[in-house]
């Protein structure tokens, strides 16, 4: 709805015609009863007509109706008829009174109507502002808000609304980017932004601009600028006030969003801070502990030549084991970084379970020397369609995990079976199991469970990252009879054509 506020409605041609018509009609109605009516009664009849004209038309039309009615009264109803000459003193008074009364009545009616129009207009503006407020309140994204502000401003006023936001202290028009290069408009908007006061059209500052600029004043700073270019090139007096109202509603909405964004950013920063702390503790504890033992062992060998061959071997073994541990932590950190950077590209290919498991066992031979590993899956199980290097990593991490959290000599089970087009793989141990409520948290980065272990809390997070990259899901649960079961689902490869070849 376009709001327009005209103080004197009916001042167009229609009002005059209506005035003349009313006058003619009154005359036509009264004329047949001229002889039976007192001239004063005839005057009353005209007053009815004038009242009608005053009610529906503007002040000018009702004045016209007053004058023509007085003239018609004089012409048709006072002696001598059909002449503007008035014989009796009484008729003369009646004519003058008719004229004066009707002019006063017309002006009163017009004022009344103007007032009612004004209130109606006020109500329209209020409801338009209310609609905008409501829409802004339901919006949480700045972009949506800006387009809502623009839409409502252009809906309420006849012209073009522009929205400007500041970047590094410089204002840019985001609704019509080309305006940023329009020096006049940009300077006005910039002035408005910097001085938090209106500028441009119809203001003392940079009045040469086509637009009228208003700041979105937040509680601390100016959040942006609203520009308005009226279609007719000039602002109507009340438009300024209304635009100010729009700008103030918009400012409070924009402020709300910027506060919410700030809070969101703080939250992300806090999360990041938490991760950094975890990483720091990982680096400081998990990397330092092996380094300390390596340095200690080496230095004692360097200063003490009298060490027996046995003690030397013992120290060297510890150096070797600790470097292996360091190596594992560093690769885990690298894997996590790679998985999180999103730079991971899967190189899917055709892989046999037995090859992947065989290689994973090869890599964990040292760790698993005190455990027996049972591979229960069928040799004929379909091949997998996966990134073999990564899935091997998952198996290595799960085996390491099982070795770490289950007592020596306890068995570890690797099993797999088909589930529709997928293959379910499980790694189960007879270790300390999983605490209730830990099933999901286990896969969180740097989470170490309730038992203290020497893990960095990364191995399972890497497993989850890799399995999720394959669109799979990895879960952990308590195993019946004690221990833990890790289970995940991977796509099976399509069976290729059967190869038939006679033996040589």
């Amino acid at each position, binding site marked *: 709805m376009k709001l327009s506020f005209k103080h004197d409605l009916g001042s167009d041609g229609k009002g005059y015609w209506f005035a003349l018509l009313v006058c003619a009609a009154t005359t036509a109605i009264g004329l047949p009863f001229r002889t039976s009516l007192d001239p004063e009664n005839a005057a009353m009849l005209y007053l009815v007509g004038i009242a009608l004209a005053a009610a529906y038309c503007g002040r000018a039309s009702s004045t016209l109706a007053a004058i023509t009615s007085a003239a018609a009264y004089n012409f048709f109803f006072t002696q001598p008829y059909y002449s503007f000459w008035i014989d009796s003193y009484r008729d003369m008074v009646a004519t003058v009174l008719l004229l004066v009364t009707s002019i006063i009545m017309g002006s009163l009616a017009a004022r009344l109507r103007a007032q009612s129009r004004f209130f109606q207009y006020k109500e329209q503006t209020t409801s338009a502002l209310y609609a905008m407020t409501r829409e802004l309140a339901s919006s949480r994204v700045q972009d949506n808000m800006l387009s809502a502000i623009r839409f409502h401003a252009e809906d309420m006023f006849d012209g073009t609304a522009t929205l400007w936001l500041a970047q590094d202290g410089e204002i840019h028009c985001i609704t019509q980017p080309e305006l940023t290069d329009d020096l006049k408009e940009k300077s006005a908007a910039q002035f408005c932004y910097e001085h938090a006061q209106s500028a441009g059209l119809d203001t003392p500052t940079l009045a040469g601009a086509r637009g009228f600029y208003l700041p979105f004043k937040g509680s601390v700073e100016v959040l942006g600028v609203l520009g308005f270019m009226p279609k007719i090139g000039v602002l109507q007096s009340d438009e300024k006030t209304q635009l100010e109202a729009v700008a103030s509603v918009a400012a409070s909405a924009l402020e709300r969003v910027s506060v919410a964004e700030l809070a969101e950013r703080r939250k992300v920063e806090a999360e990041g801070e938490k991760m950094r702390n975890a990483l720091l503790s990982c680096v400081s504890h998990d990397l330092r502990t092996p380094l300390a033992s390596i340095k200690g062992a080496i230095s004692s060998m360097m200063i003490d030549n009298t060490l027996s061959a046995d003690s030397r071997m013992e120290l060297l073994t510890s150096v070797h084991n600790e470097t292996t541990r360091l190596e594992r932590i560093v690769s885990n950190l690298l*894997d996590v970084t790679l998985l999180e950077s999103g730079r991971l590209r899967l190189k899917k*290919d*055709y892989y046999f379970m037995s090859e992947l498991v*065989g290689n994973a066992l090869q890599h964990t031979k040292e760790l698993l020397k005190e455990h027996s590993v049972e591979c229960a899956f069928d040799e004929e199980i379909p*091949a997998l369609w996966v990134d073999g290097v990564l899935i091997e990593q998952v198996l290595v991490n799960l085996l390491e995990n099982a070795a770490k959290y289950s007592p020596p000599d306890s068995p570890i089970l690797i099993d797999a079976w088909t589930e529709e087009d997928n293959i379910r793989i499980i790694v189960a141990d007879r270790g300390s199991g999983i605490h209730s409520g830990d099933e999901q948290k286990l896969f969180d980065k740097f989470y170490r469970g309730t038992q203290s272990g020497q893990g960095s809390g990364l191995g399972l997070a890497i497993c989850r990252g890799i399995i999720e990259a394959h669109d799979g899901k990895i879960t952990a649960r308590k195993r019946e009879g004690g221990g833990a079961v890790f289970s995940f689902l991977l796509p099976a490869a399509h069976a290729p054509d059967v190869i038939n070849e*006679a033996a*040589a």
Partner: protein
Amino acid sequence: MNVKPHILIVDDEPQIRKFLRTTLTSHDYQVNEAEKCIDALKLLTTHPPDLMLLDLGLPDGDGLDVIKELRGWSQLPVIVLSARGQEQDKVTALELGADDYLTKPFGAAELLARIGVALRHSRANSQPQPSIFESSGLRVDIANRQVTVDGQEIHLTPTEYKLLCTMVKYAGKVVTHGQLLKEVWGKHSSEQGHYLRIYMQHVRQKLGDDALNPRFLMTETGIGYRLKS
């Protein structure tokens, strides 16, 4: 052999060079060192070594370029030193003509074993191919097309036999999927990739080799296969 084999070490990390130098000299090798591609190429012509240990990330270029250049005029054995997670680089290096790779960090035993295999190979290449391969119970008699495991004769299809022969040809070295496809099927098509794996599984089954705990054929995930020698 009377003359100590000569090894060129190309790595920009002084500590790694030191470790390699100490280990190799104490095992009867002569050593030369280079930090950059350009020094490496110079030393390759002025002091031709018997083997090169080449790090892929060098300050003045990619180690892969050194292999490419070298293979234009020499079949010198090259062992690539690379980090974990660079499977693609390893495959590229192998297909460009590198003989083997070692993933950092590696131990002395692994290093010496790989160097031994590579040197044996390059010596064998200059002599006529032996017609019989024998290692840990597997015997392949190429002249008579006969395969036995622990004295038991094994019957292979022509393709399976060709695959095994190719592995025998490069025994001890890693052979990439691409190289195998090219040598056995005469083409390098990734669509054939799964056939290679299926044939390899058949060969393993017939040899009584368990992929879970391989006796002869080792899987190098993401790269290829290696026949133990």
